[in-house]
C-alpha cells in the first residue's frame, strides 16, 4: 500500500513570518488547508450559511408583502433587504455552493490527487469569505446596497462624494457608501470566482487520469468545465462596469451619469453581458449534478451523453448573444429587439435537448425513488416551467407587458430555485455519503422534498398570476383593493413552508453526520470514479491512480453486458485490472508512480500554507479604505495592500510542498 508522505513536525522549516503549518486536524488545519476536499467543505458550510441569511431576508420580504400597506419594514429597509437577498443568493450562496461541489468532486471525478493549484484554491475560498464579510459590514457602516442586484444607472449615481463616507447625517455619503460596498464587494467576490475558474480549467485539461479522454469525462466535470469558461469571460465585463461605477460615485467621472453626458444604458449593457452568462453559471452545475444522478437511479447510462455535452457548450455559447432581452423596454429599437428575441428563442433548443435527454434517461429505467432522484426530477419539472415562461419573454410585445412585474420574479425563481437549488440539494443528498461516510436519512429527506416542492410552488406559482395582473417588482408595499391580497398571502405561507423544509434538512444534516447509516464506498451502485475510493476519501484521494477505459468507468468495472441484455455483476476478482491480493482497494491496481520512482512511499501532497489566508485578509481592508476619507483612507489602502502583497510574496517564496527528508 502506498502511504502518504506525512510531514514530521520536527523538520518544519521557518520561512518568513510563519512556521510551515503541519496540523491535519484542529482549527489551524482548516485555516491553512490546501486540500480540495476540506476547501469544498468550507465552501459548502459558508455558502449554506449565506443561503440561510438570504432565506431569512426572503422571509422578511414575504412578511412585508403579506398584506397591503404593511409597515413591518420601511421602504429603505425593504430596498436593502431585497437587494441583499438577490446578491446573497447569487454571489454568496448558489455560485459558491456550485464551487463547493466543484472543489470536492472535480479531482475525484477525473482521478487526480488535488486541483492544479491547491494554494490558489485556498485563496479563492478566503477571498470569497472576505467579500461576504465586506459587503455585509454595511450593516454597521451606514447601510447595505439598495439598488437591486442589477443596480441600474442612473439610480446608482448619486454624488460624487470624494470625502469620508461614514460621515453621519449626509444622505449622499450614505448612498455613495452603499454603492462602494456593492462595487468593491462584488469585485472581491469576482477575484475569487476568476481564480477558481482558472484552477478548474487547468485541472480538467491537465490532471485527468490515464485513459480519461475529454469524451470519457463524467458529465458533471463537463458542466464544470463549461461553467468555468463562462466565469472566466463574464467576470471581467462586470469587473470593468463596477470600476466605472466606483469612479462615477467616488471621483465624479461621467460613465453612467446622464447629467455629465454619460449613458445609463451602457451600464445595462455591461451588466447584462455579464448577467446573462451568469444565469448559466448558476444553472449549469445543477444540470451537471442531475445528469449524474438520473443515470444512477435509473440504472441506465445517460441518454445522449454527446448531445448533453454539446448542448451544454451551445447554451454557454448562445448565452453571450441574448443579453439585451433584459432590456427590451429600454428602447433599443425594433432591429435589436427582434435579433435578441430570436437568439433567446434559439437558446431554448439546447435546453430542450437536455430536458428530453433526461426524460430519455429515465424512460424504461429500473427507477429507485430515492431523495436525490426526487430532487433531480424536481429540477427537470420546475426548470421546464421556468424555461417555458422564459421563452415567453422572447416575444417582445409580450415582454413589454411582463417586464418589471412579478411574472419575471416567478420566472427566475422557477429556474434558479426550482432549477439550481433543487439540483444542489439533489447533489447534497447524493454525495453526502462520499463526504462524511454516512447516508442522510431517507425519510427526513423525502419530507424535506415534499415540503420544499409544495412551498416552492405555493410561493412562486401565484407570482405568474400577480405579475400578469400588473403587480410591479421591487415595491415595498401595495394598496388594498388591487386584487392582489389573496395570492400575496398564499405566497407568504408558501415561503414559510419552504423554511420548514430547510429546517428539516438541517436536522437531517446534523443527525445523519453523527448517526446516519454507514455508507461504504459505493452506496448508490454508482457509475463514476469518485465512488471507487473510500468514503470519506483519504487526503490523497486514490492509493493508486485508476486507469480509465470507458465513460462509466466504475459501472464497467462492476458489470458486463451491453445493449438490451440486463447487466451482469462481475464476480469479485474478474475485473480487468483487479488485483486479488489488494483486498482493501480492489479496483486500484495501477501503480501511482512509474518506474524510476521508489514505489510506495512517495505520494507527495502539497503542504498547508498560511499565505492564501494572509493575501485574502488585505482585500476587504483595502475595500474599507475606499469608504473612508483623508489620512484614514490612505492608511487602510496601504495597510491592506501591504498585507496582500506580503501574502503573495510569502506564497511565491515558499515551495508548494515541503521537501521530505
Amino acid at each position, binding site marked *: 500500500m502506498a502511504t502518504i508522505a506525512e510531514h514530521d513536525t520536527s523538520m518544519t522549516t521557518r520561512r518568513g513570518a510563519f512556521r510551515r503549518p503541519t496540523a491535519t486536524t484542529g482549527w489551524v488545519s482548516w485555516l491553512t488547508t490546501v486540500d480540495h476536499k476540506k476547501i469544498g467543505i468550507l465552501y459548502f458550510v459558508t455558502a449554506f450559511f449565506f443561503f440561510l441569511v438570504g432565506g431569512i431576508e426572503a422571509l422578511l420580504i414575504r412578511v412585508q408583502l403579506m398584506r397591503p400597506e404593511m409597515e413591518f419594514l420601511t421602504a429603505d429597509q425593504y430596498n436593502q433587504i431585497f437587494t441583499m437577498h438577490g446578491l446573497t443568493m447569487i454571489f454568496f450562496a448558489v455560485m459558491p455552493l456550485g464551487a463547493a461541489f466543484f472543489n470536492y468532486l472535480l479531482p475525484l471525478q477525473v*482521478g487526480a490527487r488535488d486541483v492544479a*493549484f491547491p494554494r490558489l484554491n485556498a485563496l479563492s475560498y478566503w477571498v470569497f469569505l472576505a467579500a461576504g464579510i465586506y459587503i455585509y459590514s454595511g450593516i454597521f457602516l451606514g447601510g447595505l446596497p439598495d439598488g437591486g442586484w442589477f443596480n441600474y444607472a442612473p439610480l446608482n449615481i448619486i454624488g460624487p462624494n470624494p470625502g469620508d463616507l461614514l460621515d453621519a447625517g449626509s444622505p449622499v455619503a450614505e448612498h455613495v457608501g452603499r454603492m462602494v460596498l456593492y462595487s468593491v464587494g462584488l469585485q472581491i467576490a469576482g477575484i475569487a470566482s476568476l481564480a477558481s475558474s482558472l484552477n478548474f480549467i487547468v485541472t480538467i485539461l491537465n490532471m485527468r487520469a490515464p485513459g480519461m479522454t475529454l469524451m470519457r469525462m463524467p458529465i458533471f466535470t463537463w458542466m464544470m468545465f463549461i461553467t468555468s469558461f463562462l466565469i472566466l469571460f463574464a467576470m471581467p465585463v462586470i469587473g470593468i462596469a463596477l470600476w466605472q461605477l466606483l469612479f462615477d460615485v467616488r471621483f465624479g467621472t461621467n460613465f453612467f451619469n446622464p447629467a455629465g453626458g454619460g*449613458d445609463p444604458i451602457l451600464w445595462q449593457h455591461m451588466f447584462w453581458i455579464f448577467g446573462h452568462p451568469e444565469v448559466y453559471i448558476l444553472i449549469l452545475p445543477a444540470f451537471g449534478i442531475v445528469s449524474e444522478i438520473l443515470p444512477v437511479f435509473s440504472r441506465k447510462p445517460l441518454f445522449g451523453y454527446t448531445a448533453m455535452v454539446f448542448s451544454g457548450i451551445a447554451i454557454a455559447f448562445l448565452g453571450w448573444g441574448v443579453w439585451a432581452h433584459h432590456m427590451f423596454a429600454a428602447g433599443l429599437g425594433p432591429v435589436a429587439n427582434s435579433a435578441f428575441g430570436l437568439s433567446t428563442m434559439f437558446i431554448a433548443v439546447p435546453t430542450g435537448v437536455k430536458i428530453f435527454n433526461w426524460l430519455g434517461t429515465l424512460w424504461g429505467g429500473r427507477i429507485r425513488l430515492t431523495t436525490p432522484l426526487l430532487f433531480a426530477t424536481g429540477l427537470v419539472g420546475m426548470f421546464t416551467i421556468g424555461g417555458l415562461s422564459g421563452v415567453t419573454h422572447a416575444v417582445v410585445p409580450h415582454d413589454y407587458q411582463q417586464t418589471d412585474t412579478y411574472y419575471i420574479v416567478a420566472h427566475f425563481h422557477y429556474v434558479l430555485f426550482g432549477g439550481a437549488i433543487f439540483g444542489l440539494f439533489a447533489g447534497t443528498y447524493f454525495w453526502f455519503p462520499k463526504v462524511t461516510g454516512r447516508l442522510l436519512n431517507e425519510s427526513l429527506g423525502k419530507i424535506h422534498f415534499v415540503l420544499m416542492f409544495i412551498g416552492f410552488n405555493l410561493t412562486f406559482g401565484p407570482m405568474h398570476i400577480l405579475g400578469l395582473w400588473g403587480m410591479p417588482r421591487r415595491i415595498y408595499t401595495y394598496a388594498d383593493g388591487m386584487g392582489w391580497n389573496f395570492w400575496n398571502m398564499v405566497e407568504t405561507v408558501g415561503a414559510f413552508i419552504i423554511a420548514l423544509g430547510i429546517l428539516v434538512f438541517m436536522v437531517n444534516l446534523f443527525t445523519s453526520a453523527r448517526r446516519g447509516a454507514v455508507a461504504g464506498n459505493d452506496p448508490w451502485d454508482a457509475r463514476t470514479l469518485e465512488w471507487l475510493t473510500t468514503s470519506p476519501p483519504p487526503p490523497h484521494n486514490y492509493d493508486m491512480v485508476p486507469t480509465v477505459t470507458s465513460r462509466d468507468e466504475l459501472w464497467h468495472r462492476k458489470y458486463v453486458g451491453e445493449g438490451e441484455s440486463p447487466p451482469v455483476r462481475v464476480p469479485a476478482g474478474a475485473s480487468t485490472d483487479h488485483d486479488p491480493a489488494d483486498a482493501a482497494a480492489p479496483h486500484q491496481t495501477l501503480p501511482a508512480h512509474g518506474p524510476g520512482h521508489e514505489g510506495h512511499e512517495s505520494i507527495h501532497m502539497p503542504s498547508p500554507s498560511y499565505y492564501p489566508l494572509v493575501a485574502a485578509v488585505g482585500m476587504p481592508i483595502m475595500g474599507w479604505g475606499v469608504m473612508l476619507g483623508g489620512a484614514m483612507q490612505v492608511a487602510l489602502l496601504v495597510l491592506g495592500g501591504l498585507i496582500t502583497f506580503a501574502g503573495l510574496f510569502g506564497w511565491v517564496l515558499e515551495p508548494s510542498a515541503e521537501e521530505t527528508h
Partner: protein
Amino acid sequence: MATQTSDMAAPLPGSSDYEHATSLGLANDKLAIWGLIGSECLFFGALISTYLIYQGRTGDGPTPAAIFDIPFTSASTFILLMSSLGMVLALAAIQANEMRKFRAWILATALMGSTFLAGQIYEFSVFVAEGFKLTTSPFSSSFFVLTGFHGFHVAFGILMLVSLWIASMMGRIPQRLHTTVENVGLYWHFVDIVWIIIFTAVYLIPAATSAAAQ
C-alpha cells in the same frame, strides 16, 4: 499523470504544484497564464468598447484631435514594443543558462517599461494642465480609466520583472526560474499587444479621422 513521467526527458521543473506530467503535456502554470490572458482580453475589451462609444462625447472639453500628441506617444509606444524584444532576449539567455546576460536583459526590459510608464505619467500631467481631466467629459473619463488601467498592468509587470531580477541575484536556481520567466514574458507580451490596440483605437484612428475631416 505520474506514470507518464518516464516518457518525458525530464519532469517540467516548477511546472505544477507537485510532480507529475500533465494530460496535455503543457505545464499547468503556463496553461493558467493563457487562461488569464483570455480573461484579460475581456477586461480590455470592455474598456475599449466604452472608449469607442464615448470618444465623440467631449462636452465642453477638448476633442481627441486637439489633445493628443501623436509623435510623443508614438515614441513611448516604440519603447514599450522594444521592451518585448528585451523580454525575448532575457528568456533566451536564461534558457541558455547565461545568467549575466539574463539579468542585464530583464533589467533593460523593466527599464523600458518604466520609461513608458514615466511617459504616461508625463502625458497625464500635461493633459490635466491643459484642462483635460478625469471628470471633464465621458471621453476624458473613458480615456483616463482605459489608459490608466493599462498603465497599472505595466506597473505590475515591472514589479514582476524586478522580482525576477532580485530572485536571480539571490541565487535562486535558474532551472526553476526559466518557466517562471516564460510565464512573466507571456504576460508582458500580452500587455504590449494590448497597447498596440489601444494606441490604434485611442490615438491614431480619432486623429486620422479628424485630419481627414479638415
